């Protein structure tokens, strides 16, 4: 059994951090929508959703972008302090980065700051412009980030090659068929068809269409590769005492989290069909006191179908080797037993770089706040498992979120 790490806050305690608001712009190709423009709009949306005004925010955590090295190196987290008019009153603004799992680590950072008293109202902010960036430039950038240049760049590896190797190993280890793998993309598309903010909101997808699309990186077909998109989302976390003062009666709290950094480059991962998920799950469930059987929804990183199937198995949602067949049976579909990636995920809502995981987290918070549009709101949604992973699936990060009554 794993060593027990307690959170230093409990449900209902004055310092217990709670999620109180979310914001999101449409995902897709929006070349006219500027970087700072989108950050500003989505920040205001989340602050309003939290029932706050910008001056209430004392800390901004920025999630990185991948579309531009210049935007990445710029101190945009402080620019946003100015854009929101909170210069002077804002105590702290900075960037957190762990690739696709950044949002999970941003939550841990905010949670620690709030619990310890360093922050009261934290705004976590993200914008990506992948959909409008030059595709070849992005492919080359993704052959250099998360890959050791001196050792692996000479092989010509890039992101689809990494996804393809994991997919092949997973199919080999589990005996999953190409149809099983494609069914994962179809489940995600059904959810995207219920999300007006999704890149593929109005476009249905079938197993036949996927398997007849061109081969990009064997065994991945074109429709199994993540669509690069523009997107922006944000959320606000405060402490329970402050939320009560503001008359908020229902919010979302972190019951526990667990993580495992299993490698930096994929070639050093001992088992590509397992990754860090089993250890991350053991640590998360140990901290939260509830288990995989207690979840009402799952929001698990899905830049490739196999990545999500592997995560499901590691988290204990289904037996080992059954992840893809779990999807093929319709278990995660709208109306299914355990809804998964209810915004359509990265594969169908759009891959917004580091923001893909943020969008899944925001959707989980939104579902637990019971603020999703009626057609995709999961009834009586109380508990969510959020799963994120960054780089070459270098880490597995799990957040266990639960709806909480504040009794305000």
């Amino acid at each position, binding site marked *: 059994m794993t060593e027990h790490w307690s959170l230093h806050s409990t449900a209902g305690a004055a310092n217990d951090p709670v999620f109180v608001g979310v914001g999101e712009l449409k995902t897709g190709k929006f070349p006219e929508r500027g970087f700072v423009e989108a950050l500003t709009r989505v920040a205001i949306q989340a602050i309003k959703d939290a029932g706050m005004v910008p001056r209430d925010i004392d800390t901004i955590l920025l999630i990185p972008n991948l579309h531009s090295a210049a935007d990445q190196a710029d101190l945009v987290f402080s620019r946003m302090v100015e854009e929101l008019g909170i210069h002077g009153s804002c105590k702290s603004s900075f960037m957190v980065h762990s690739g696709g799992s950044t949002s999970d680590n941003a939550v841990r950072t905010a949670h620690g700051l709030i619990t310890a008293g360093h922050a009261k109202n934290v705004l976590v902010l993200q914008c990506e412009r992948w959909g409008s960036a030059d595709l070849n430039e992005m492919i080359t950038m993704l052959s250099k980030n998360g890959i050791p240049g001196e050792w692996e760049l000479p*092989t*010509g590896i890039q992101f*689809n*090659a990494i996804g*393809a190797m994991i997919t092949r190993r997973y199919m*080999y280890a589990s005996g999953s068929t190409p149809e099983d793998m494609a069914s994962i993309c179809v489940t995600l598309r059904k959810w995207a068809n219920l999300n007006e903010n999704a890149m593929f909101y109005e476009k249905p997808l079938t197993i036949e269409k996927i398997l007849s699309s061109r081969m990009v*990186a064997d065994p991945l077909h074109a429709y199994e590769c993540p669509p690069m998109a523009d997107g922006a989302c944000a959320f606000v976390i405060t402490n329970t005492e402050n939320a009560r003062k503001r008359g908020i009666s229902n919010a979302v709290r972190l019951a526990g989290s667990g993580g495992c950094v299993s490698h930096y480059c*994929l070639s050093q*991962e001992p088992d590509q069909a397992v990754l860090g998920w089993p250890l991350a799950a053991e640590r998360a469930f140990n901290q939260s006191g509830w288990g995989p059987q207690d979840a009402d929804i799952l929001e698990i990183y899905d830049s490739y179908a196999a990545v999500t199937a592997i995560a499901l198995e590691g988290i204990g949602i289904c037996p080992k080797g059954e992840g893809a067949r779990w999807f093929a049976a319709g278990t995660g579909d709208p109306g299914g037993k355990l809804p998964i990636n209810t915004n359509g995920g990265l594969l169908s809502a759009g891959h917004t770089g580091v923001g893909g995981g943020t969008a899944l987290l925001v959707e989980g918070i939104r579902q637990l706040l019971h603020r999703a549009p009626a057609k995709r709101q999961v009834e009586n949604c109380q508990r969510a498992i959020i799963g994120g992973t960054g780089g070459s699936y270098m880490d597995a990060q799990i957040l266990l979120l639960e709806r909480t009554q504040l009794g305000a």
Partner: protein
Amino acid sequence: MNIPKIVSDFRAGLASDELLVQTCNACGKPNMWPRYACPHCQSENLGWTRSAGQGSLHSFCVLRQGAPEGFEDDIPYAIGVVKLDEGVQLAVRLQPEGTEDWSAYQCDDRVEFVGKDGARECAVFRKSSD
């Protein structure tokens, strides 16, 4: 840019068709990729051992489009992850069997080191002959 010695030594090995595995002179353990200090015992007294070049193919893919800049003319090409019998693993290129054909490869196949991939600073492997 200065090329670190561990990189130039490894590449010099490849250039003479030797696959070198960094080996710690203090604790005797192999390290891949080569490190600046031994991750097992933190010693900086590190040397090289010539690999027997035998291993198993953990996974692989064939990239057919979307090559990074400078790799456009290589398409299609196969990248694999090989677990060497010495207990370390690395990313390699896989040699086709016939023209642009990698269909005979499967996960967990026994594979062997062939040499350096032309102008590229990486190792090439093929299915074992035995």
